[in-house]
């Protein structure tokens, strides 16, 4: 122990600290300064914990308290508050650099340390200063712009008031700062791990280290006698079904008989501190009898393969899609290309690790109606509440969404909430389950791996004639969104194109690999990768320009997708025309780098992504307030996209209200309408439309009565609250034999162009620039739109070149190859606005489409630069180097 005096945010403090205690823990646990975040298991990999010590930005997770005697420490809380923010905090909000907000405090502290010594830094200086700070949402572009804007503020060249859009400029189409921005920038937005609960037990969970085994004896007696340990929870202690059923009842809260993937949970230990719980974990003895490991869909489909789940066959779904006669059309085609494409299992990689807090309202020991409150990161709070009620056998529960540090689909299914809730019920005490990054990566869902055997044909004039795709999807151990993934893949199989003949088959197969679920795009990024690369191959074979080939084959109104559904609008050709001059410029520039080991290439890819799935319905409630303002009640999770902006701006525009009179409630099952998940890019289209329906009803009542507030409406005998609904016209599944049937009500379209530099000797690929032309309908908030695009491009490039989750090996942000600011690249966006007739004020969604064309654009650019096709993602240096060498030998 050591006595340490230091000053934190201007207040002198005195601590007696362990030699090993780090500043991050002291700030968060002893001083409740939770603006500094923990993401990387205290390895110094993420920068979310960054603070300023003696004028320098430091990683507080690596800084020993014992080394800080006499130090001056400034945390994000020491800069400003939402009511009185620091200029850098304002700059981050006004530049649109705050999305989920988890990385923001660390980014701002690193920026402050830079600007304190260099008030006018260049781009490279900013990148150097922020090199230790990770962000998953923004692609770093707006963060660099925020630092530049902060510099201008600090130098007195412009004021925040001058930079802030005025209501006089209008509401729609204006980048009004998102409502949650300043709370995130000032560190006052509480994420789940920031929430302290008096007397809460802390959990640690024993997880399987093998992919498939039968559970025998579990001896927890030694662990239960350890200091601070209150007890353990096993499957047999759970009084509900112990099954977390999203779409199929196959995933246990805690495993009772078998484990089915590396990471499956077996026993939870509850103790007074997390360290005590983790220490006790090592004393639990579990007998695991190994079972045959099904490590691929092919292994699971083998005749002698054991059945992974007693109740379900290994093949979850086998769905064909047949349109026309693809076999005959391929035989008659002038050119046919054929290839196998593979995509990897990947982690969605939100910067915030998984976390749940649970507490009781009332005394569960005395009152069977005491309420269990779950706080977590769900993007579907009402559905998850129902899952938890059944799994845990407790009805009176509510779910509250804390601020979420990104999610990208990972929280469409329940992860840590089941175990936390089970422990809270078992011990009748509040609990916190805050796993570290490595455990979080083990337990969460993943992006599915696809294998796709493709044939694509065209006639002599370059018209696509037919498409075959035999798709094999690795489901992993549990079903989760299962058939939805397959349906989405087939609903968008033909991408942007008119393909008159289609013969596809999609099989979804259980394995002992990590369980897959939603991941930005969920299916279409994989199938679009195969299609767009095949399109490039076919254009190449026909000797046609890739842009002209895509333009010629674009679907047109009146033609049908692979589902047989005829489309009424398809503004893709306009996007291809919009990108044409950029493409011409890029091709010309690349011509100068065609020889030698370092070569440049240009690649195109399109994406036409469905929004508003068949049968989707959403609801939202609105209420006129006594002061004439409007409250919105809709479970529209916002893990960073800016859904709070969308609800605010639509309501203010429709009702003619100032922003301060719009109150948006989205986070609590006790107060919100069950609006459905923040998934499938549906929030703006579905919930935004339901909101406008509710507002329309309210406005009719106000117009009819002349009432301006809720009291006046009551006097006139009218309700002040209205439930709005959005229901898509098409409903129902695809035909099980033909895959023909209903489709999405709207589409968002994009063309992306990658400019790359490939070193054929090292295999390294450098992204020089990504250009994205997008038509997402009427734009509500341009900054939020471009923020999604830039972040999606960054994620798509990572998917194309680096990222992969390998069970047992991918344990942190380094082994995941998380994109840093040094990986960031120039981005240009071209926005077109074709109003969508059925979208809210003409808008549609955009969040997932951002990365749908990215991987094929990058792979096509690598081919353009080198002649090498990389058909199995990611395109790592090793693969490129090996294939470049092979190509050289062939020559």
């Amino acid at each position, binding site marked *: 122990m050591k006595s340490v005096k230091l000053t934190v945010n201007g207040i002198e403090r005195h601590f007696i600290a362990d030699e090993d205690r780090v500043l991050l823990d002291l700030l968060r646990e002893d001083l409740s300064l939770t603006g500094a975040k923990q993401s990387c298991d205290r390895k110094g990999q993420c920068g979310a914990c960054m603070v300023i010590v003696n004028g320098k930005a430091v990683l507080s997770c690596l800084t020993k308290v014992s080394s800080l005697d006499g130090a001056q420490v400034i945390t994000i809380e020491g800069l400003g508050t939402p009511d009185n923010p620091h200029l850098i905090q304002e700059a981050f909000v006004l530049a649109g650099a705050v999305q989920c907000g988890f990385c923001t405090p660390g980014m701002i502290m690193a920026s402050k340390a830079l600007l304190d010594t260099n008030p006018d830094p260049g781009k490279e200086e900013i990148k150097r200063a922020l090199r230790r700070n990770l962000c998953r949402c923004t692609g770093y572009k707006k963060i660099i712009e925020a630092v530049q804007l902060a510099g201008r503020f600090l130098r007195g060249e412009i004021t925040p008031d001058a930079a802030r859009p005025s209501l006089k400029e209008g509401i729609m189409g204006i980048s009004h700062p998102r409502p949650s921005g300043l709370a995130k920038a000032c560190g006052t937005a509480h994420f789940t791990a920031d929430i302290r609960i008096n007397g809460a037990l802390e959990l640690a969970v024993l997880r399987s280290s093998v992919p498939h085994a039968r559970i025998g004896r579990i001896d927890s007696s030694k662990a239960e006698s350890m200091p601070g340990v209150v007890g353990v929870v096993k499957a047999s202690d759970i009084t509900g079904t112990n099954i977390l059923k999203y779409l199929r009842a196959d995933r246990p809260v805690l495993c009772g008989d078998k484990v089915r993937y590396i990471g499956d949970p077996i026993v939870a230990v509850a103790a007074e501190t997390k360290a005590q719980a983790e220490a006790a974990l090592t004393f639990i003895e579990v007998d695991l009898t190994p079972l045959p490991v099904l490590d691929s869909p092919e292994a699971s489909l083998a005749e002698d393969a054991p059945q992974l789940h007693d109740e379900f066959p290994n093949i979850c779904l086998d769905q064909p899609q047949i349109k026309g006669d693809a076999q005959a059309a391929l035989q008659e085609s002038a050119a046919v290309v054929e290839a196998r494409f593979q995509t990897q299992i990947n982690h969605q990689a939100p910067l915030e690790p998984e976390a749940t807090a649970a507490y009781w309202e009332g005394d569960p020991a005395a009152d069977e109606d005491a309420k269990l409150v779950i706080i977590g990161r769900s993007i579907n709070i009402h*559905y998850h509440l129902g899952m938890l009620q059944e799994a845990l056998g407790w009805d009176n*529960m509510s779910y509250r969404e804390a601020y979420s540090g990104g999610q990208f689909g990972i929280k469409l299914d329940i992860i840590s909430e089941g175990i936390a809730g089970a422990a809270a019920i078992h011990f009748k005490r509040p609990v916190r389950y805050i796993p570290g990054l490595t455990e979080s990566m083990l337990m969460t869902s993943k992006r599915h791996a696809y294998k796709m055997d493709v044939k694509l044909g065209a006639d002599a004039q370059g018209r696509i004639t037919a498409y075959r795709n035999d798709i094999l999807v690795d489901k992993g151990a549990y079903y989760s969104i299962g058939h939805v993934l397959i349906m989405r893949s087939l609903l968008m199989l033909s991408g942007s194109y008119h393909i008159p003949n289609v013969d596809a088959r999609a099989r979804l197969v259980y394995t002992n690999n990590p369980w897959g679920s939603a991941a930005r795009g969920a299916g279409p990024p994989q199938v679009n990768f195969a299609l767009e690369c095949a399109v490039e191959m076919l254009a190449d074979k026909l000797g046609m320009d890739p842009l002209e080939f895509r333009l010629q084959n674009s679907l047109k109104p009146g033609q049908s997708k692979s589902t047989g559904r005829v489309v009424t609008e398809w503004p893709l050709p306009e996007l291809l025309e919009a990108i044409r001059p950029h493409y011409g410029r890029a091709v010309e520039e690349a011509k100068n780098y065609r020889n030698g080991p370092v070569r440049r290439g240009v690649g195109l890819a399109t994406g036409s992504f469905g929004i508003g799935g068949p049968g989707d319905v959403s609801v939202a409630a609105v209420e006129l307030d006594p002061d004439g303002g409007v409250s919105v009640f*809709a479970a529209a999770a916002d893990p960073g996209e800016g859904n709070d902006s969308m609800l605010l701006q639509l309501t203010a525009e429709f009702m003619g209200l100032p922003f301060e009179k719009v109150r948006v409630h989205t986070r609590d099952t006790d107060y919100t309408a069950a609006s459905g998940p923040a998934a499938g890019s549906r929030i703006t289209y579905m919930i935004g439309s339901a909101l406008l329906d509710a507002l329309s009803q309210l406005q009719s009542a106000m117009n009819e009565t002349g009432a301006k507030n809720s009291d006046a409406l009551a006097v006139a005998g009218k309700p002040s609250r209205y439930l709005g609904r959005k229901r898509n016209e098409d409903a129902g599944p695809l035909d099980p034999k033909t895959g023909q049937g209903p489709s999405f009500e709207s589409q968002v379209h994009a063309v992306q162009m990658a400019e790359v530099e490939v070193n054929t000797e090292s295999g390294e690929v450098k992204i020089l620039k990504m250009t994205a032309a997008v038509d997402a309908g009427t734009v509500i908030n341009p900054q939020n739109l471009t923020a999604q695009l830039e972040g999606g491009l960054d994620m798509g490039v990572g998917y194309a070149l680096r990222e992969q989750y390998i069970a047992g090996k991918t344990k942190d942000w380094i082994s995941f190859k998380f994109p840093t600011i040094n990986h960031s690249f120039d981005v240009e966006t071209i926005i077109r606005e074709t109003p969508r007739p059925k979208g809210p004020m003409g808008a549609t969604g955009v969040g997932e489409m951002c990365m749908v064309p990215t991987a094929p654009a990058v792979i096509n650019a690598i081919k353009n630069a080198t002649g090498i096709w990389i058909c199995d993602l990611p395109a790592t240096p090793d693969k490129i180097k090996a294939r470049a060498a092979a190509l050289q030998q062939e020559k």
Partner: protein
Amino acid sequence: MNKDSKPGETNPGLQARCIAGREIVFDGEGFFNDFFDWSEEAFEILAKESGIDCITEQHRRVVRFLREYYAYHGRSPLNHQLRNGTGLSALEMQQLFPEGIKLGARRLAGLPNPKTCS
């Protein structure tokens, strides 16, 4: 769409059924996909299918409460709210709806499950 199948039998996704001459979409668990597709007539047919031979005023009281609650809040009530709102105990509710509160009362009252994804 497969109109002859009972909901949830052949496909885990949405299913359309023709009830009293009207096509209604149900989810994989047999819940109405859209709250506004419900009708008294559909309720009576579905109730009979679920083993309720005689619809009483108590059944209607439960259904009325559930529908009014959803129409106001946009979500289903918790069980204790349902008990308080109807004055019926859990046991009485179970006797009224043999399939339970969720699969019986809530489903027959046309309250949709929260949406999963599409």
